[in-house]
């Protein structure tokens, strides 16, 4: 199937950056194991290296089948099992959308406005993302550029405002308790990373310098996360370990040009990036089902997926224990490993074997 729409690698990686950054900024000491938060900079560096390895089979497959996504290749080569792979990717995006939305709702309700109407927030955000997903990847990627500019300016303002608060004595010696925190941080970051799966599904839509773009994107997100973690540790000190969302607390204590706190700006930026993430996920779902259903049914399916995400995220945020059980790092990590490591590698090996058989 030939895709009529091609976005540039530049647009694609902006989209991927925003899609990944939104969940990275919800890190906290509780999920990272209460160790030295600064050590999680090494976690992000480890993920940086692992992402380079994981993307190699995808680049190989993309060079061989430039017009096909990973699920499409699987469907073509493996028949019924291939359709199962498409379904796995679809469910993965659905789960990650629900996870992201519930994390944001938790952030909003626990920090900024406990009385906020989570129904209206979830429905409006998902509605906008659905609108973008139905319009297509070109719309999402163009919007990502605009939102990236706002995000970059907003975060630059927050970091600039915080720079006088940097206290280097809060920076504790690294590896005091061993490398456990760094490894746990790596698994947390990896479990929430949708970039490889998004790349696997959306790669046929991308044209241009994909490899260079991936390197810049991967480096950029690691750099951003490192800067954020440094500011969290050096500005909040011990206080960072008591906060559910230390990045939010960081924004709340920033003060610029008479404006006393920038938490509303931070929440706004998170929300804008979340819309991009959900839109990407929904478009990923649409791509997974594109070969199984007619276009009209696909838009109904997308709306249904969006509705499921909203309902589940609302149900999960009703009780913090539900989130703790359903979104355990181990579960998410297993799912992410399946979609980002196992399935790409299996299809890659299958293709390699097929190629060798042909050559033989």
């Amino acid at each position, binding site marked *: 199937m030939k*895709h*009529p*729409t*091609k*976005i*540039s690698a*530049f*647009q694609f990686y902006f989209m991927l950056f925003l899609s990944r950054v939104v969940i990275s900024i919800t890190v906290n000491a509780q999920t990272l194991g209460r160790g030295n938060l600064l050590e999680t900079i090494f976690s992000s560096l480890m993920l940086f290296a692992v992402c380079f390895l994981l993307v190699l089979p995808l680049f190989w497959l993309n060079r061989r089948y430039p017009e096909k996504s990973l699920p499409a290749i699987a469907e073509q080569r493996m028949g019924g099992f291939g359709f199962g792979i498409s379904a796995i990717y679809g469910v993965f995006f659905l789960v990650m959308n629900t996870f992201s939305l519930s994390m944001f709702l938790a952030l*909003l309700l626990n920090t*900024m*406005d406990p009385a*906020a109407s989570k129904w*209206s*927030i979830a429905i*409006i*955000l998902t509605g*906008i993302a659905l*609108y*973008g997903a*139905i*319009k*297509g*990847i*070109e*719309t999402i*990627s*163009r*919007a990502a*550029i*605009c*939102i990236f500019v*706002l995000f970059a300016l907003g975060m630059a303002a927050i970091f600039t405002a915080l720079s006088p608060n940097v206290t280097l004595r809060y920076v504790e010696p690294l590896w005091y308790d061993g490398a456990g925190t760094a490894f746990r941080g790596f698994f947390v970051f990896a479990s929430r990373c949708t970039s490889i799966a998004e790349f696997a599904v959306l790669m046929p839509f991308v044209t241009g310098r994909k490899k260079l773009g991936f390197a810049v994107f991967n480096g950029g997100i690691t750099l951003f996360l490192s800067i954020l973690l440094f500011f969290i540790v050096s500005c909040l000190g011990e206080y960072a370990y008591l906060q559910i969302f230390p990045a939010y607390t960081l924004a709340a204590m920033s003060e610029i040009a*008479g*404006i*006393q*706190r920038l*938490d*509303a*700006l931070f*929440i*706004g*930026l998170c*929300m*804008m990036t979340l*819309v991009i993430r959900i839109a990407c996920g929904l478009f990923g779902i*649409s791509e997974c089902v594109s070969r199984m259903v007619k*276009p*009209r049914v*696909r*838009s109904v399916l997308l709306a249904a997926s969006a509705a499921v995400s909203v309902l589940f995220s609302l149900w999960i945020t009703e009780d913090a224990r539900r989130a703790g059980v359903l979104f355990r790092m181990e579960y998410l990590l297993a799912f992410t490993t399946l979609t980002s490591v196992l399935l790409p590698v299996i299809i890659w090996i299958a293709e390699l074997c097929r190629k060798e058989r042909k050559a033989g």
Partner: protein
Amino acid sequence: MVNLSDQLSENIGYLRGIFKNAMDFILREFQIDGVSAALVAMEGLVNKQHITLGVLNPIMRTAILQASGREKMVYIQQNVLGTADQAEVHTMDDLVLRLMNGFSVLLIDECNYALAFGTQGFEKRSVDEPDTEVMQRGSREGFVETYIINISMIRRRMKTPALKFEPIILGEESHTPAAICYLDTIVDPEILAEVKKRLGSCNLQDVLAAGYLTGYLERPSIFESVGLTERPDTLCGKLHEGRIGILIDGTPTAVYVPYLFVENFQTVDDYANRPFYAAFIRWLKYAAFFLAIFLPGIYVGIATHNPELLPETLLLKVAEAESQTPFPVMLEAILLYFMYELMREAGLRVPKSLSGSVSIVGGLVIGETAVSAGLVSAPSLVVIAVTVITGYVIPKLYEQMAVLRLAFIVVGGIWGVWGILVGLTFIIFNLCGKSSFKVPFMAPVAPFRLHAMRDVALRIGWKRLAAKNNPVQNMPGAGKEEKRF
């Protein structure tokens, strides 16, 4: 389609039938050396002196000795008349269309075709500067209602054979003549074909203004992807960038496509002023756009939900002012804004002699009495006033800003600052999902092209700007079909 008969009486009978009760229909019957003839025209559309001196006198004073009516017609056509604009007419539809366009038509018995002469002579407005697009440096000419004059204004500025004007007729009942203009060396043939196709699908009965056509040239959206201008120099600049203009008879506004969002912030003055000043003004307009849409919403949102965002001194002043008024901030802002829009609409519609009174009453009631009576607070009034002023900086976007401003007041009042940002996200998606004839509406910002920023983020000097023409069809992302389902 009815062909002309060779019997003059039949032709006259047909015309009398269709122009029954039309007092402006002129029929002058006469004899040309024994053969019956008639001249038909429409009162008010023709120059009678021109008809008398250029058509009737030469025919009636010349001895036309040919035997049959057809031979007489050929002789008149070749030897008698000196009119430059002369055409054979074979059908009644064509004859009627020409009559409606100010032609006078000669019919002769025993001849199955007629001769139409360009004798237009109707009252028209003289060329003057358009009020809506005032320019400080440069031409003071604006389009007028007569499209032929508008064509001449463009031709005078672009003396190149590459400039083409293709005639079209719009309106099933009004038969409004129009012209599609473009530079055939630059224009994208696919876009041109699409424009013609969409205009061909226009099922309007009457085309009385340029705005009637925009619905046929774009998909429905908050923001308009069809450009409108009253300035010939603006249209010439657009044609040079590969755009296609449509000049419609009866309206001084030309339509052009494709139209991009950034064009709302560009004026001809930008290119006549010094680059650094033009860039400064452009950034002022970008800021004004955001202020005009978001300022009242942000004010309401902050005052209602996020007061921590305000500096302490300002917060105290706002709180003090608000404590004196009976309405919540959102309602106060909506009331003030409605009052302003009412005054504006009244100022536009009332006779000029009364507009001063409207201003005085409005200024006194809102500016003084409402505040001193404690109905509205001074900060709210200042915010709405600033918003209104900034709105006038980009007149092309006034309609959108007026509606969005109100929407954001409500959104800010209900959800606060995050609601405003949600709204902004929706607008970004709406803008980014829009294309104008396969050219992304947000180009060259999204998709981004650094090179194109020289006329968006900046306005670099003419030496470098003129070095390479960048037609609109070469914008990043242009020519692609959006994947929709």
